[in-house]
């Protein structure tokens, strides 16, 4: 028996010694349980064994599969680990025993299996990885439902959620995957006959899998995974081995279009082909030096055809090249196209015979790309509108040719006197003239110039001079030479000129794009971005440019536009198509509207009043314009995405805070509620049995706790207003004395045993604040002081002016703050450590600081000399305190 492995999954027989080569993984892959994966695996393993490999098997579930038992009879088995738990458990694989045994190939059924608790790895596929690491090759089985990435799809298809899955990377990186397939009908048959080996526990849940619809879908999923795998292998193989050639794996069509009106038909036909074969398709227009001669109508037609293709779902591209066929083939290879689709050219057959046709050249390509020719029905009988553009200078070309010949004759005159014999030199001069005419005005004028040249040469310089000898052979010969040589030189020169022009255009296009990209990359402000889009497009196209951004309701507005133009812009925004000047949507306006389209749709509309009204008929310019628009759109979209993600972060943060608030509050709300409910229910239940003192105590509890609840809710309301940003101080000129008095009045009862020392100067100026809020601040600070200081200790309240600020300090003689506490007290839900009074929610001081800061003031806390705490409010007085003309108002009153 040959010792060399014939299968890539078999390790070299000599790999046992020396450094450990990594083992290979082979997966037997199927659509569902019961397709015969395990059989296929055991079968393959037996073959390997007969080839001389050292094959051992791990645990295999042979219940309901007596025939499998028979197959396994002569295979060595790793002893199964004893069940760690009682009950019907699946046999566990003993990794250590396998590593000790170290076979060449190990069979490890059911890769997705979850190991029993206490084993080295939680998952069997992790065992497998260790085996591979140790140089043991593994054969294993897997069904598509166990792939992690398709888990949810499987759930949708079958209603079954599998919890045992395998990462896709295992599948993707397996050295070999063998598909084990079975038709859904056969599989269903086996299911009905109870031949599918399933644990009893899952028998019922798997019912969703064994329906015809599910099985077909699963099978398709399996085949697709296989196909993807095969394709990616092909791709890497192709890149490694033959970069120049095209490998037909997924069909990709390259559709070439011409300026002909029938190009649309080609595009439509190509689309049908692409749909039929699920192929990708690219529609290409090849720009050659000759494209320069196209009429505006033809240019427009090319452009419209490309747009049509785009609408039909094609990728469109403009390629530049000297030779259409060569450019197409080159591009096809580059893009890995499998087929080139062209329309039947409308040229006369004789031209093809002489000059060779593009189609011939395509068909003869060496890259092995198929060529499909779409036949235009009318194309052969009716010529399309002349595709050569009659340039306005054409007739003048004939006239000017006469001038060129005349100049040649004048130059030749002194030459003919000086150089003898003069014939050849003079003929050369005429030849030069013809070449120039050919270069400047094309073939017609050059023929005309040749004829004139020959006649002039005959008349002026061939003896007998000043007579037309009209020697037939001489005339014909010279004429032919002039025509041929002149035209060859001229067309070469023309070609160079055109290439230079194209190169220059490309250069401009690239520069414009580069400039735009760079400008946009430099800014992250939307307004700047829009400005730069406008300035870049103006730089490239001239005229007036405007970018319209939609508002939150996706409406556009611009004062500079008429309502009709604005309506067009709105249409463009909503439909994502071009409109206006030169398009087929509302072309009557002077403006051209383009959508700024990015991945998520139209983000803005560009309005352009071009300097050249023919702009929409220049496809290359339009393509540049669209590219610039696309760049702009991407930048705007990127900006929007950045802002959205910021907003999302902020709202997530807000949500987090809200959750903290909720969880804390629900606790703080429930505590008083519990007391109230408890007291009230005991009064309800056994009120009459309780002595009246006890009853009063319960009632007092209810009252106090309700009070606490009220304070909590009040503060919560304030916190919510502060955090939602809804708090806008309603400022008015207020008297501090009055507000302090109001707060003290509210706390009258609780303050009965406290001395409150007030130092508020009578001439203290008014301060511009929201009276309700500031009174609440003072109230909360006093209440807080009441809570945290021993009863009977005094409070000191002082107010003073300091320049344009008002200071209000509330001081106590309590325990003061511990280290670091004086700042923490303002945090939400902070509870003082030495509270003996009823606790609040820790919101009162948070509210105070929020209110003060809403006024542009500060609230800070510090320890007082000789013990106690001080809370100091500093508020901007808010301008000049209003002067009161007391005398005036008294008089005024007196008069009233």
């Amino acid at each position, binding site marked *: 028996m040959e010792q060399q492995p014939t299968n890539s999954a078999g390790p070299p027989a000599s790999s046992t010694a020396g450094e450990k080569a990594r083992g290979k993984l082979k997966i037997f892959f199927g659509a569902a349980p019961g397709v015969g994966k395990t059989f296929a695996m055991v079968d393959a393993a037996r073959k390997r064994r007969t080839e001389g490999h050292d094959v051992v098997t791990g645990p295999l579930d042979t219940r309901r599969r007596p025939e499998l038992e028979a197959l396994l009879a002569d295979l060595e088995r790793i002893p199964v680990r004893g069940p760690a738990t009682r009950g019907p458990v699946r046999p566990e694989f003993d990794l250590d025993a396998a590593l000790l045994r170290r076979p060449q190939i190990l069979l490890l059924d059911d890769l997705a299996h979850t190991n029993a608790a206490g084993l080295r790895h939680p998952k069997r596929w992790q065992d497998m990885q260790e085996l591979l690491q140790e140089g043991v090759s593994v054969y294993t089985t897997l069904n598509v439902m166990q792939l992690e990435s398709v888990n949810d799809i499987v759930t949708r298809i079958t209603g079954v959620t599998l919890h045992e899955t395998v990462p896709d990377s295992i599948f993707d990186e397996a050295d070999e995957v063998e598909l084990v397939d079975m038709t859904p009908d056969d599989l269903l048959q086996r299911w009905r006959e109870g031949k599918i080996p399933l644990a009893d526990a899952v028998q019922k849940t798997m019912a969703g899998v064994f329906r015809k619809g599910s099985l077909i879908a699963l099978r398709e999923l399996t085949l697709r995974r296989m196909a993807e795998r095969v394709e990616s292998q092909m791709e890497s193989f192709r890149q490694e081995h033959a970069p120049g050639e095209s490998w037909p794996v997924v069909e990709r069509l390259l559709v070439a279009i011409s300026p002909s009106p029938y190009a649309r038909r080609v595009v439509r036909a190509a689309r049908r082909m692409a749909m039929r074969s699920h192929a990708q398709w690219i529609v290409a227009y090849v720009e050659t030096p000759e494209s320069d001669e196209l009429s505006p109508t033809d240019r427009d037609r090319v452009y419209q055809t490309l747009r049509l293709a785009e609408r039909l779902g094609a990728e469109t591209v403009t390629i530049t090249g000297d030779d259409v066929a060569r450019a197409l083939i080159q591009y096809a290879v580059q893009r890995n196209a499998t087929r080139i689709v062209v329309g039947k050219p409308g040229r006369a057959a004789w031209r093809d015979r002489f000059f060779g046709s593009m189609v011939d050249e395509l068909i003869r390509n060496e890259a092995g790309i198929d060529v499909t020719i779409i036949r235009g029905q009318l194309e052969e009988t009716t010529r399309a509108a002349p595709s050569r553009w009659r340039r306005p200078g054409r007739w003048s070309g004939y006239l000017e040719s006469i001038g060129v010949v005349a100049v040649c004759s004048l130059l030749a005159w002194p030459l003919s006197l000086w150089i003898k014999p003069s014939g050849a030199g003079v003929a050369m001069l005429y030849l030069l003239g013809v070449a120039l005419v050919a270069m400047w005005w094309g073939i017609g004028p050059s023929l005309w110039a040749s004829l004139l040249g020959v006649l002039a040469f005959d008349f002026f310089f061939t003896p007998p001079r000043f007579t037309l000898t009209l020697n037939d052979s001489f005339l014909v010969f010279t004429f032919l030479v002039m025509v041929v040589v002149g035209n060859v030189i001229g067309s070469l020169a023309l070609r160079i000129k055109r290439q230079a022009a194209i190169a220059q255009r490309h250069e401009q296009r690239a520069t414009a794009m580069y400039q735009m990209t760079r400008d946009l990359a430099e800014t992250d402000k939307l307004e700047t971005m829009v400005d730069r889009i406008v300035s870049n497009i103006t730089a490239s196209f001239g005229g007036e440019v405007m970018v319209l951004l939609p508002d939150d309701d996706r409406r556009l507005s611009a004062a500079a536009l008429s309502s009709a133009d604005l309506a067009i812009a709105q249409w463009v925004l909503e439909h994502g198509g071009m409109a206006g000047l030169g398009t087929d949507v509302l072309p009557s306006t002077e403006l051209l509207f383009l959508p700024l389209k990015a991945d998520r749709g139209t983000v803005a509309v560009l309005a352009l009043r071009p300097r050249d009204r023919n702009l929409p008929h220049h496809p290359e310019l339009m393509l540049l314009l669209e590219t610039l628009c696309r760049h702009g759109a991407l930048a705007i979209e990127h900006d929007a995405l950045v802002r959205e993600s910021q907003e999302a972060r902020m709202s997530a943060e807000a949500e987090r805070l809200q959750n903290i608030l909720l969880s804390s509050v629900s606790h703080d709300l429930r505590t008083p509620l519990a007391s109230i409910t408890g007291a009230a229910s005991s009064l309800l239940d056994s009120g009459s049995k309780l002595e009246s003192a006890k009853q009063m105590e319960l009632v007092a509890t209810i009252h106090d706790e*309700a009070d606490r609840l*009220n304070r909590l*809710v*009040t503060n919560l*309301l304030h916190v919510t207003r502060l955090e939602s940003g809804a708090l806008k101080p*309603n400022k*008015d*000129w*207020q*008297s501090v*004395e*009055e*507000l*302090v*008095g*109001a707060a*003290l*009045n509210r706390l009258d009862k609780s303050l009965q045993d406290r001395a*409150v020392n*007030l130092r*508020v100067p*009578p001439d203290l100026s*008014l301060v511009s604040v929201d*009276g*309700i809020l500031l*009174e609440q601040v003072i109230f909360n600070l006093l209440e807080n002081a009441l809570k945290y200081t021993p009863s009977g200790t005094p409070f000191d*309240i002082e107010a003073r002016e300091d320049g344009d600020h008002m200071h209000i300090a509330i001081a106590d003689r309590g325990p003061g703050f511990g280290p670091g506490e004086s700042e923490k007290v303002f945090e939400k839900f902070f509870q003082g450590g030495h509270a003996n009074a009823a606790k609040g929610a820790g919101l009162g001081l948070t509210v105070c600081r929020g209110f003060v800061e809403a006024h542009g003031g500060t609230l800070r806390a510090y320890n007082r000399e000789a013990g106690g705490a001080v809370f100091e409010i500093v508020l901007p007085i808010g301008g000049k305190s*209003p002067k*009161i003309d*007391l005398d005036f*108002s*008294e008089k*005024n*009153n*007196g008069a*009233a």
Partner: protein
Amino acid sequence: MTPKILLVEDDPQIRRLLRVTLPPEGFTLLEAENGESGVAQNAEHNPDVIILDLGLPDIDGIEVVRRVREKSATPILVLSARGQDQDKVNALDAGADDYLTKPFSMPELLARIRVALRHAARTAGETAESVLTVGEIQIDQVRRVVTVGGHELALTANEYLILLVLVRQAGKVITHRQMMKEIWGPNNIMETHYLRVFMAQLRRKLEKDPARPRYLITEPGVGYRLKVD
């Protein structure tokens, strides 16, 4: 005859509370669970006091105040929740007589009802007593003399008028707007800081400790009230 009190309130618990607590205090309770029914019952039963919740399910509480005022001068006591500061001021300016913020205590409510009843009686009698007395404060309206605990106070015209307005409606809240209207007439509504300054002066003359006033109580954001014990 016991005074009739109309309670316009959609919350059944509050209605139940008053149903239990008011009759023993010598009041007859009428109930309406929405604004429309409140307006109708006022017309039908002519209650002595209306207790009106501002957050009604059908019509705005302020609208109820207006519709009641079109027909009668029945004192209206407004119940407002916290955060409805502007609503209660609007209700007061629209003709409501007083307010209480929920949650309120029963003694407070009873005190307000009594103040309202007293004012209604006085307005009905309108005998223009020449001497008004609240606690230690006495105002002789004919002589324009104010004494506190027997000592005469030297008040300016504005101070006198402020005090007079408050004493005439002792125990009732007077909004800034109402106060200015009373003092300077409806066409001379000035900035509220004028009031604050006059009030501070008045306190300094009237109160022992102007920062902890006994009589001249500030209701932040609403107005002033003369406290009666």
